[in-house]
């Protein structure tokens, strides 16, 4: 029974890995669901939270494909919450190579779907609405299987061999991976920042950084401060109000990103 739900949730994660709508592929959702299916909900939630932080910056922009959160969270959650009962730190460590594997798989399926798009063209020539719909659904199912099939393979291999393989890793490696697990989240933050950063926005980052040391302010309080600052900026910035002020204020120049300049000069 739990095996059925693991495969079902794996399928949903695969579908969402391409759709990006309901977010069944996000680690916090996928790992929790797999944990639930295996009867170890709490381990799934904790693993999901940890992986979520790592995957914060993993998103597809245009045609570029990001590391795949779906395969990483599903299989790593199965190893941690399933019969193998692997440690959370090890689960995180195996998640990263899995994210790469998932990325390769989705690129493969996206290429395969080119052929399906041509099949849809042939149905369109016949005016067949149903035919076009069917091809679309088939493509979606293949994306679901992209995660469901590897998951079934891992399940078939069984807990013993997986645990033995992971147990053969020396302590220096697992300890080091645990240490690295604490700071690889920076890559996720970096990916988000490198997408958003403009000269006007960097000061807000450093304001947040400085306030972060005040540990009494929890994230909700920080969110309120952030919203207030954003609203103030929108009200006061000549960029949005300055019909008269305009260029003389010079507040909205589109120059280079100063931090980037410093980084590039390195």
């Amino acid at each position, binding site marked *: 029974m739990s095996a059925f739900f693991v495969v079902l949730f794996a399928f949903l994660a695969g579908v969402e890995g391409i759709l990006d709508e309901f977010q069944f592929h996000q680690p916090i959702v996928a790992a929790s669901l797999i944990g639930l299916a295996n009867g170890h909900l709490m381990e799934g939630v904790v693993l999901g939270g940890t992986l979520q932080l790592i995957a914060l910056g993993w998103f597809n922009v245009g045609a570029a494909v990001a590391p795949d959160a779906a395969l990483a969270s599903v299989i790593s959650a199965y190893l941690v919450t399933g019969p193998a009962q692997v440690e959370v730190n090890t689960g995180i460590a195996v998640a990263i190579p899995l994210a790469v594997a998932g990325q390769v798989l989705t690129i493969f399926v996206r290429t395969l779907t080119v052929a399906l798009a041509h099949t849809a063209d042939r149905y*369109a020539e016949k005016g067949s609405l149903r035919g076009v719909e069917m091809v679309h659904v088939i493509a979606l199912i293949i994306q679901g299987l992209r995660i469901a099939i590897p998951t079934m393979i891992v399940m078939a291999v069984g807990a013993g061999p997986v645990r033995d393989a992971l147990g053969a890793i020396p302590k220096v490696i697992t300890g080091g991976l645990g*240490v690295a697990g604490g700071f690889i989240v920076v890559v996720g933050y970096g990916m988000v920042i490198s997408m958003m950063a403009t000269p006007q926005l960097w000061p807000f980052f450093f304001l947040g950084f400085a306030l972060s040391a005040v540990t009494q302010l929890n994230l909700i309080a920080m969110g309120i401060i*952030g919203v207030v600052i954003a609203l103030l900026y929108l009200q006061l910035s000549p960029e949005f109000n300055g019909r008269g002020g305009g260029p003389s204020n010079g507040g909205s120049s589109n120059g280079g990103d100063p931090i980037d300049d410093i980084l590039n000069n390195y």
Partner: protein
Amino acid sequence: MADNEKKLTKRDLITVWWRSFFLQGSWNYERMQNLGWAYAMIPAIRRLYKTKEERIDALKRHLEFFNTHPYLASPILGVELALEEQRANGADINDETINGVKVGMMGPLAGVGDPVFWATIRPVLGAFCASLALAQNVLAPIIFFVVWNAIRMSFLWYTQSFGYKQGVNITQDLSGGMLPKITQGASILGMFVLGVLVPRWTTMNFVLQVSKVKNQAANVVDLHHLTNAANNGKLSVDQLRNVIDQVVAGKTVDTFKVTTLQDTLNSLLPGLAPLLLLLIVLWLLKRKVNPIWIIFGLFIVGILGYWAGILG
């Protein structure tokens, strides 16, 4: 005349909205979201065009290349629904107009959707729920799922309806009005929260010992008297009170004062190491280094640091 007018029903609009959830299902490298787009438009095509020839034409023009942020396709869908409806009723709207509107809107709208949804709302919500999850709160995934989908589904519905009502006028409205404000406001919030998160949730512990000195006896809580008294059965309330007073006064219980590299860094500026690491990562990303290689590199740094006893 009103009898012959072809009109999309509310139900059609709802079906298109539901189908727009599956926009990327057949994402492919040739025409990207083209088939998903056609899939979403089919309920309207079915309603508006009854002859085979009309349907063939409609399918063909909606199977052209299309790619934008999956949520920002909704206002475009709305506009295209309005255009198709007018065309079916005999308005002079040719294929070029219909494709022109699609292509003209998809670029700018993708530019709004990526920073707002992927780079702000999802990381902020994800980070917040991840903090709950790490505190072993089962509500974390539920909050993430419900809040995200409430935002997403209402956004898709309202922007689709907005596009449908506005028709082609929407392009001007969007570029001149709210969208730049929303993008800027969301980005400010996003950068601020990231600034908070980078030092708070990056765990870098430099356990390397910088110094180890014996604490002066005057600064250490006098535990020997206490244990002696306890072992001899002569422990008094006053002795306990005395020890507690010493602790409250800020005396230490350790014989040695160990300063790690981390303590030194913290006294300089809390979160300095994560910040420096972030700048290095940003520099690498600027150099178009694949993020996965950066992650592997950091794993190696972690293993070497752990092996050398610097990190722990």
